[in-house]
């Protein structure tokens, strides 16, 4: 089955990460690259790391009218910070994969709709 993993950052995590020294940040990135390397046979689309929520723009299309606002679609302490598509046997395998994720503290696993 195909799933998208949505990586979710908390304010606290972002703050802690920003407070790390350059060497420690590099090490954190290295762990993430290693994770992608370890699971590359299951990753069908590496996806992307997103820029911060302060860079987001949300558009609402309501009956032909377009409303453009500054910020992510939900203002909250937890924001999507990246995504990756995986192909695994079932939810248990996805869960095992996510268990070793070395970065942000929340991950949403969402099955992809089969067309």
């Amino acid at each position, binding site marked *: 089955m195909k799933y998208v993993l949505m990586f979710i950052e908390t304010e606290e995590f972002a703050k802690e990460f920003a407070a790390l020294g350059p060497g420690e940040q590099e090490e954190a990135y290295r762990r993430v690259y290693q994770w992608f390397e370890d699971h590359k046979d299951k990753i069908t689309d590496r996806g992307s790391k997103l820029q911060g929520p302060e860079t987001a723009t949300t558009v609402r299309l309501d009956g032909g009218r377009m409303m453009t606002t500054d910020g992510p679609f939900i203002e909250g302490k937890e924001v999507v910070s990246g995504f990756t598509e995986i192909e695994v046997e079932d*939810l*248990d395998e996805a*869960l095992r994969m996510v268990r070793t994720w070395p970065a942000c503290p929340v991950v949403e696993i969402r099955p992809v709709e089969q067309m």
Partner: protein
Amino acid sequence: MTRPEDELARVVRDHAGRLAGALVTLLGDFAAAEDLVQDAVEIALKRWPVEGIPERPDAWLFTVAKRRGLDVLRRQQNYRAKLAALEPPVQPPPDDRLRLIFTCCHPALAREAQVALTLRVVCGLTTAQIAAAFLASESAVAQRITRAKRKITDAGIPYRIPRADDLPERLDEVLTVIYLLFNEGYLSSTADRVHSRDLVDDAEWLTALLHGLLPNEPEVGGLLSLIRLHRARTAARFTPDGDIVLLENQDRTLWDHAAITEATTLLTRTARRHHAPGPYQLQAAIAACHSEARTWSETDWPQILVLYDMLLTLQPTPVAGLHRAIALSYVRGPADALAELDGLAGDLEHYPLFHATRAQLLRDLGRDSEARTADGRAAELTTNPAQLGLLNERLAR
């Protein structure tokens, strides 16, 4: 004395889960298979009271589910073909219920859904029976089950015994669900059990099933022993009017001493084979301490206190802390216990037993008016009629 409806429920329970397991394996579709079993169970519950329980209930249920499947699954040609090729089993099919339990208690399902699904799929309860047991509406339970089954299919929740490295965590989840059922059933009084399902019986049955399928898991043995030790006191727990009799005041000759011996033997055997006991074994050991005391005054409180200390290192929950404080009151007196209890006030403000225990300790210390206030608070918070009766009686004194 066995009521005919209890006998009926027991036969259904012994066979429905096996049939569900076999059909899920056959069809590879959890939701469709489960619907067929539920239909067969509903038909059995209508016909067996009139026609009598068939000699081979498993074959009967199987045949009805098959016929029903050929009828209902018109559009799923492949399912129909699989069902049509199937003969009723000469012997009971291999036991797939372990897989079934792990799917129903998958951590990706909400707790309420795990409970409802386990009761329906593994124990063969109908939606109406589950609704009655949890005082919920039938449509709410039905919706919860439908949603859970859809998630199993759509999110790819597997029908499989978890891998060895996932097993401890997943087994915890299963035991939590069963323990919840047990508590739900144990706390409801016998007075209203006339019309409702005996969830304690279902919890014991499930644990025994699990113990048979996973005989080397110590915490399964621990939970089974715990449930059996509590059940052995049933006859002494309520007055004929359905009021709670506190452990202290129970007539211990009414306890089922043979069952107590059997449960403590199981616990000892489980503990001997493994080193560090888990939370269910510890709780069972505490229950065993109470069960083995011939009188209330012979209770080995220092031992119970040690067991609570061990439990708290594994599960530092406020409720375990509350029970430790009760044990402490018998070892070091009410003043120390009250001091410990008051440290838990923030976490247990809405927990009736916290206030009831506080009331008891305050009364022991001669602080009667504060005790009455605490009892009043406990009575405000409790919804259980038998517990409420007890509190009101204390307030009236």
